[in-house]
């Protein structure tokens, strides 16, 4: 006896940027190729066989894979293709939660009477996406978002994996612990020390032990996931919860001056996006990733929400440098990120008494004279840039120091998403 197929789908485009390039230029099909300039953003499966991975420098990738074809990003095409794919999804169910340019969750429980089972919908989706766009869609079908995502990972490349509820625990428990999203290398090492290699072993470990070794919330969370306990529903029009940007780079990350420039650049982009949405946030988070792919985050929360570039810069720099000094002095950094969260669109602003403080003193305090003046200035800069281009005006440290990285802004803004 089999139960009805579960209703949640995780759809994920395979090697999206690379496949999109192959769609544009059929001569690239079946070739070891990658997208990116300086840093690899996506690699075809042919290139992956040689060990080429995202976030790798182009030079390293070429060494691993002689003859690798590297092409530039055609951002508008990616964006258009992505929109087409999610429009197809929306034809099957209105409950589509897009989580990035190439991934989404779908809840099809309300659409079964129209299209039959969720498995039938998944198969039809894959066929339609390939037919209409030439892209390859892998799909995981399961009873929870968590398990659907695990299933789509197992399905790749070009596959469909359905996890029937009666067998889901057996399916999940046979997988390596790293199949759980969020188990990175650091957690894997810690689990290894506890003798945990598979999800099953994780599930059968006392949650108290996990909490003790992994932290209270992470331990409990992983244990719940190992039993497929994930209550999150698929949400259609989620409000933006944070605005962030990150930048991967080569060796420069150990140099504080380079780090500062990267953070100014990131804050500049995050601030501009916040202001474009008429949002401001109270919490600023800095993320630092090292060359062994472990990462740390540091955050601070202000009394009132801010959206100016200097306020984000000053907080992010402080957080990043404190974090690096505390745990990471001398380690090679290969990615920095900034996110602003606890967002509000409230127009109310408690003003501060104008004591006539020196410039720079009121930074990070939304109601201060300085911060309010800066907000007006940033809005004027945003307006100039949308008319004359991002390079028309900007932070002096970026203009004089040269903009960081070699990835065009348009690509980065496409690749970073607001959650």
């Amino acid at each position, binding site marked *: 006896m089999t139960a009805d197929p579960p209703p949640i789908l995780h759809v994920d485009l395979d090697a999206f940027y690379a496949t999109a390039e192959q769609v544009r230029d059929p001569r690239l099909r079946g070739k070891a190729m990658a997208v990116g300039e300086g840093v690899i953003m996506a690699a075809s499966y042919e290139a992956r066989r040689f060990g080429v991975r995202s976030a790798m420098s182009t030079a390293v990738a070429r060494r691993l894979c002689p003859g690798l074809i590297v092409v530039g990003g055609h951002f508008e095409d990616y964006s258009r293709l992505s929109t087409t794919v999610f429009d197809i999804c929306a034809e099957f169910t209105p409950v589509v939660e897009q989580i990035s340019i190439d991934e989404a969750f779908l809840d099809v429980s309300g659409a079964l009477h129209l299209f039959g089972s969720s498995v039938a919908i998944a198969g039809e989706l894959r066929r339609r996406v390939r037919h209409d766009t030439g892209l390859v869609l892998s799909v995981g079908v399961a009873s929870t978002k968590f398990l659907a995502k695990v299933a789509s990972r197992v399905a790749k490349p070009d596959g469909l994996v359905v996890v029937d509820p009666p067998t889901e625990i057996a399916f999940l428990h046979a997988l390596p612990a790293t199949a759980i999203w969020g188990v990175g290398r650091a957690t894997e090492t810690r689990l290894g020390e506890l003798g945990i290699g598979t999800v099953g072993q994780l599930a059968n470990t006392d949650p108290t032990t996990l909490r003790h070794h992994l932290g209270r919330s992470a331990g409990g969370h992983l244990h719940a996931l190992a039993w497929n306990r994930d209550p999150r529903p698929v949400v259609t029009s989620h409000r933006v919860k944070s605005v962030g940007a990150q930048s991967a780079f080569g060796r420069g990350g150990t140099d504080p001056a380079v780090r500062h420039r990267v953070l100014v650049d990131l804050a500049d982009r995050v601030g501009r996006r916040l202001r474009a949405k008429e949002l401001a946030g109270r919490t600023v988070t800095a993320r630092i990733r090292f060359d062994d792919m472990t990462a740390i985050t540091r955050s601070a929360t202000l009394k009132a929400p801010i959206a100016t570039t200097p306020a984000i810069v000053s907080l992010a720099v402080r957080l990043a440098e404190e974090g690096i000094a505390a745990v990471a002095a001398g380690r090679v950094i290969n990615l920095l990120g900034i996110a602003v969260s606890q967002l509000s669109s409230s127009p*109310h602003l*408690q*003003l501060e*008494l104008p004591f006539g403080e020196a410039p720079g003193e009121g930074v990070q305090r939304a*109601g201060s004279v300085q911060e309010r003046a800066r907000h007006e200035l940033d809005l004027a800069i945003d307006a100039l840039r949308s008319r004359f281009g991002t390079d028309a005006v900007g932070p002096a440290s970026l203009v004089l120091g040269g903009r960081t990285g070699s990835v065009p802004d348009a690509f980065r803004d496409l690749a970073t998403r607001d959650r």
Partner: protein
Amino acid sequence: MRIRAERDDLADVLGRAARAVSNRSPLPILQGVLCEVEGGRLRVTGTDGEITIRTSLQVEALEEGRTLVPAKLVAEAVRKLPAGAVAMSSAGGQVEITGNGPRFRLRELNVDDYPATAPKATSGGITMDGDLLTRALNQVGVAASGDDARPTLTGVLFEADEEGSRLVATDGYRLAVRDLAGAENFPTTLVPNRALKEVSRTIGDSKITVDLGEREATFGSERGSMTVRVIEGAFPPYRHFFGSFPNRLTVPREALLDAVGRASLVAEDHIPVRLNLHQGGVELSITRQEVGEETEHIEGDFQGEDMTIAFNVRYLTDGVAAVVGDDVVIHATDPVKPGLVTGTDEEGFRYLLMPVRV
């Protein structure tokens, strides 16, 4: 040391001195209160390193000496004894407290490690009406900041000029000034508000002596003394705020407080109350999306041009509540410049507050 005293008196002097002791003190020795017996008096000292409170009591001194005991514990132990006479003695590293049956034995802390706390010889200070001082401190204290990120805003400024002495406090959003015309001139001193809140509780009395030194400020009375390290750094300039305000609303104080209280039922902390000032009074309104709204009108006297200004509910309430008298006056210029709350009689209290931009 060995003493006998009435439970209520002993609990009182121990409890008040223990108020200075912090549970989070980095030095374990500061968890204690120092008890010294000399010449028929028990002197009790508690400190957290910043604030020091000293109290004393006439006791039946059977043996002079001194001891250091865990502050909160000894104060509570004495308080919970049956009413009547209590005996307290120290010997062999223990302090024994007995009264009408129960017997506590508490481990002594090492009294020789306790920091020197002998009160410095007072250079006189300014003696003033205790009620007047504590009322004035309460009036301005609401405006002081609790945020240690800006230390100069966590204090109350004591200062004087040709018009007399005054107290000033601000958290950057509102600023309260209280003139003390009769008082002798204060030397300019910034005293932590955290300590000033203790003045009425621990040493409040009909006469209080204020001694403002360069490093420390001491407030003393018949009931004891409180000493605190003063805040270094300059208080922000504030006098330029008190220019002329073209618009002036006078309304009954209680009516305004009640109205703001009703409006705040609808609001979260960050949602401001709007005051539409016009001939004949003020219309208050507050709107919270997805919850509802409240509006009401208070009759009053208005002079000036009709205008609307919005304030944080708590900041406005604090100011209106601090005013003494039946009527309160709201002075305003425009929706983004500071407003001013005063009374109608010349009591010398002024409360300036920045509006919320809406």
